[in-house]
């Protein structure tokens, strides 16, 4: 063993990735094996796999082989481009596995033909964030009303919020002492 691998081992043991290895080695192994996954670590009690160039269908096959169900799919629009971050949330009954990836040219392969739970999640993301999922068996609008284009939320979500740090409700401040009753 060279000094580099020994240092690497020590570093792994102390990082979130190391925690993942210890907690569920088989799962971490399977996640790392998915083409496109760069790193797997434990953050805030859930398993996070970072995979900017994820092979979505390989991920679906790997999860199906492990018997893990899809919880939902989240999309976070990027303010400066037409891409979005897409997170696939898988739920193995004792832990949550999140696979974070990015759309390529505003599209990602659809999981819906193989995974039923993805069908509605992808339709909603298409309505709200204009992410295309080629291969979806039923790409009709789910959430948006008739006559409104896709990407209803993109621009509004990316606009920075002007939010007061303190709540402006008078109920949020400590109450004045009640007036003395005679």
């Amino acid at each position, binding site marked *: 063993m060279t000094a580099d691998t020994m240092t690497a081992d020590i570093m792994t043991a102390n990082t979130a990735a190391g925690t993942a290895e210890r907690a569920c080695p088989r799962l971490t192994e399977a996640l790392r094996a998915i083409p496109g996954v760069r790193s797997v670590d434990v953050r805030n009690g859930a398993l996070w796999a970072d995979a900017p160039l994820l092979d979505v269908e390989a991920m679906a096959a790997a999860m199906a082989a492990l018997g893990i169900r899809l919880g939902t799919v989240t999309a976070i629009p990027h303010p400066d481009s037409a891409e979005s971050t897409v997170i696939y*949330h898988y739920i193995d009954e004792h832990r*949550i596995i999140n696979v974070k990836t990015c759309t390529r040219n505003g599209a990602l392969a659809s999981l819906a033909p193989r995974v039923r739970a993805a069908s509605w999640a992808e339709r909603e993301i298409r309505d709200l964030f204009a992410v295309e999922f080629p291969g979806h068996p039923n790409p009709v*609008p*789910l959430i948006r009303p008739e006559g409104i284009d896709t990407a209803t*939320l993109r621009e*509004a979500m990316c606009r920075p*919020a002007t*939010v*007061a740090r303190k*709540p402006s409700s008078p109920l949020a401040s400590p109450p004045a002492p009640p007036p003395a009753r005679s």
Partner: protein
Amino acid sequence: MPYSFPLGPYHPALEEPFKVKVQCKGEVIESATVEVGFSYRGIELLAQKRNWVEVITLIERVCGICSNTHAMTFCLAAETIAGIELPKRAAHIRTIIAELERLHSHLLWAGVGAEDIGFHSLFMEVFTLRERVMDTLEAISGNRVNYGMNCIGGVLRDIPDPAAHLPALDALAKGLGEVVIPTFTQNPTALARTRGVGRLSREQAVEWAVVGPVARASGLDIDVRKDQPYLSYADLGFESVVRPEGDVQARVVVRALEMMESVRLIREALLSLPPGPLRATQGLPEIPAGEATIRTEAPRGEAFYYVASEGGASPARVKIRTPSFVNIPAIEPMVMGQPLADLSIIQASVDPCISCTDR
């Protein structure tokens, strides 16, 4: 002659807007399409425009029946990001409110389910029983709906006299055991309408990834309170209720027995309320950059929240996936080959919460 029968969005069976369009031949349904989105309000967008205190009030109003679940799950997510440890007393109080909410939600469902099979008297009985739960919730939080009990770091109100709520629990257990459960499981006309109706096999339940009582009634033993215990469920001990049949009767029985379990949990929690502070942090919470995914057991199943923060005054992204979002699509396989008369009770039996689905 085949015809298309739309049920909704002015829905006769549930007072919520969603549409099930069925293709029928005679009285038999051949296929169904579910349409939602009629009460979409863009809450995920609005959440990004509110600060960390105002957003709880907003999130609570995603739904009226499971309002506490949403606020509680959001607060758990924010606390996870910020690394705030919940005081024990706050965890117990949150558990009590969550279980009370489960009770009122299941009773509401039982009443609506009874109405949908035409059993008006049972509906009246169940709703009279539900008033006991609503009275308890009002006594604790001041509201019958949207309790406003959760804040990031703890709860806002105390339960100063836990023993005062025990008689209501006893009356509830008595009503459930003597009226509701026997009527649903023994009345011949109720059985005739619910047994063997709307079957979802275990394989279908796994394929459609259903959660909550619908999954547990099809033989899938999944319950967040058992699999990944949160709040005080690990301390109080929790037994999940599972049935293998997968029909409407099984879902009724699962919810009824869950209600009995909830009564037991509330009683245990009230009797073992530990002393201590109500909140871990005072004043405005400071949530650093980070992201968390939390799931809790809402009355309808697993509620999933993804909250991302960039250290700012408002959340960077709030993603809400409610149990109805995965349970409502499962209506489509359940109604195939069933008579049209059963459409109403089958779609009521997945306990759809449209406000939750549409957000």
